[in-house]
């Protein structure tokens, strides 16, 4: 039985060198990158062009901890999918959960930051051009993290019910591609908003 399944798998890889899921996700990533590119261009274009305050230097603090959380979640995600590929269910679930927790920490960090801006600093999307570009760019990224977290949670729940098996590693890896993309975008957003722009 195992011999036939190996044969089938070998045939499949031979006639289909590319996985549909991966190609599809790459396409989505390209399209999403273009969306982010436009928002990044708007951010850079309007840097220092606000007619009145507050300026980024006055209110932004660098979110070191949440950034570390998000970036390290890429590693745990990588280990999680690696574990699933090798059939190590427990390891997969643990790492998947850690990824989920790290992502959630990041999102909570963003929410706290926004809460402070809106309620303490009285700084909103309509305050000035900085507010406009800051909330839209960071918000666009945060919404992607949120969508990622929903997807991750779904897999987590399925995993707890034992529905995620070794043969699903391909699908989890496709989801992982999205998660890595969201992380990579954060590197860009972070550099521009909290580095260059400040």
């Amino acid at each position: 039985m195992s011999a036939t399944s190996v044969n089938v798998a070998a045939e499949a890889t031979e006639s289909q060198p590319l996985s549909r899921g991966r190609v599809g996700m790459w396409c989505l990533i390209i399209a999403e990158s273009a969306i982010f590119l436009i928002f990044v261009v708007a951010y850079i274009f309007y840097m220092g062009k606000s007619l009145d305050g507050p300026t980024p230097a006055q209110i932004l603090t660098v979110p070191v901890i949440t950034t570390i959380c998000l970036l390290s979640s890429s590693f745990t995600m990588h280990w999680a999918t690696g574990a699933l590929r090798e059939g190590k269910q427990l390891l997969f679930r643990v790492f998947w959960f850690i990824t989920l927790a790290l992502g959630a920490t990041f999102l909570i960090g963003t929410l706290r930051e926004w809460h402070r801006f809106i309620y303490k600093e009285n700084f909103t999307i309509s305050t000035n051009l900085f507010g406009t570009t800051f909330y839209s760019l960071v918000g666009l990224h945060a919404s992607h993290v949120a969508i990622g977290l929903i997807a991750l949670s779904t897999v987590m729940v399925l995993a707890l019910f034992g529905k995620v098996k070794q043969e699903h590693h391909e699908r989890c890896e496709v989801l992982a591609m999205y998660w890595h993309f969201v992380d990579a975008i954060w590197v860009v957003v972070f550099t521009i908003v909290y580095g260059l722009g400040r």
Partner: protein
Amino acid sequence: MATDSITLPSPRAESRSVVLDWLCTVDHKKIGIMYIVYALIFLVIMGCEAILMRIQLARPELHFMTAAAFNRLFTMHGTTGIFFVAMPILIGFGNYLVPLMIGARDMAFPRLNAFSFWMTAFGGIFLYASFFAGGSLLQGGGAPAVGWFAYAPLTSPAFSPGHGTDFWILSLLVAGVGSIGAAVNFVATILCMRCPGMTLGKMPLLAWMNLVTAGMILVAISPLTAAQLMLMADRFLGSHFFDPAAGGQPVLWMHFFWIFGHPEVYILVIPAFAFISEILPVFSRKAIFGYPAMVAATTGIGFVSLGVWAHHMFAVGMPSYGNAFFVLTTMVVAVPTGIKIFNWLATLWGGKIRFATPMLFCLAFLFQFLIGGLTGIMLATAPFDWQLTNSYFVVAHFHYIIVGGILFGIFGAFYYWFPKMTGRMLSEKLGKWHFWIMVIGFHLTFDFMHVPGLLGMPRRIYTYQAGRGWGVWNMITSIGVIFQVAAILIFVYNMVHSYFKGAVAGNDPWDAWTLEWATTSPPPDYNFSTVPTVRSRRPLWDIKHPEDPDWKYE
């Protein structure tokens, strides 16, 4: 299957199940046909809008409709034409044909395919819902009146109160998601689902061109989506992306829009190139000339077109070197486009040309696209463009491409693939009437439309003063519309009539060479009973000419 024991369903239940079957389908052929039918309905709607506008403009100082109504009509006409006629009809043909031509049983993601169609469909319905969003229907209701490129700050709540602009934004956002979904599907299908033996270099040109189009949709529609999100934030959340009062730059919208807007032109025209590249060889009885050059030229157009957007903005006041840069990139597009025209010419050369209706439309495409391309070079010359941009010359130019090029290509595609889709031939006699009346109407309307532009008539004006010398030309332009309407009526009649009473087509009525003609007409749900294996770009040629197969030469 124990078919004997099944009770026959009542006719009503059966018809209900047919409707349900179409609404819930994930079959690429049915989705393709739904895209096409949907686009045809919107083609009729946008045509009616054009008729109303041409009546208003036929003579100077007419009062057939109000300025408000006219402004809404041209906004809806343009938006509908681009997003709910041209895009869906081309995606529809692609959807139907690509899997068949690459020997696949369906698209890579059938459910995503259905999702994309319904997103596009809802986008169009949503856009038209704006007519009922307040205001008198005679004045166009609450439809948007900002032009299809919706320059800021005219779109701000101060200058466009009401919800017309909101409908416009949301409708394009939704349709944009549909287009991106379709593009993801096309790329995945073409890269992952080809039948054994079909390397990228053996793919039909139609598949290649749809691949390039899909790639362009991914990188070009997304900026539009981003810009729409910004505009929506400006209107709903009070942000200031395009708000001059807070230091925002309306010019930024222009850049974002045209970063989408120019590649969009190629997103529309490349699928039409694809039809020509499939039909021309069959009716010339020759292989396409210079296949690798055609692929290279298409890809080249795809890349270069991403760097030409600001040629829509020569009058915006960019620095002279900026203008010069975009003159250069725009003119460079002429090179790959020229390569295509010459390759098509060389395909005709030495062939045995059969003047069937699909071929007539393709030949007209060649002549008309040539003219549209040459007026494009005039517009690419920035100083000439300072006079021509936003004038009726530009309107004539892009209708030459969209109607004379793309729509003629689509008509050709209809006559060519209708037999495959329905199993019946379209009437050749009616087809030829359709063709010649369309040619007359097209040239009356759009040849003469260039002239008022040269005489200083701006676009988007609902009326003009007598004594400008524009009246005669506008009258001829409007008269041409009558012929076009007659031609479309013949076409619609031909389709309906032939669907029921047309000659039975058989598998391969045109003696063609690509895989879709290897299966039955219409094809079964699974397309091919056995997945074909190919050795060349023209697998059916190889079967028909075993003594002289293509794979010996490729």
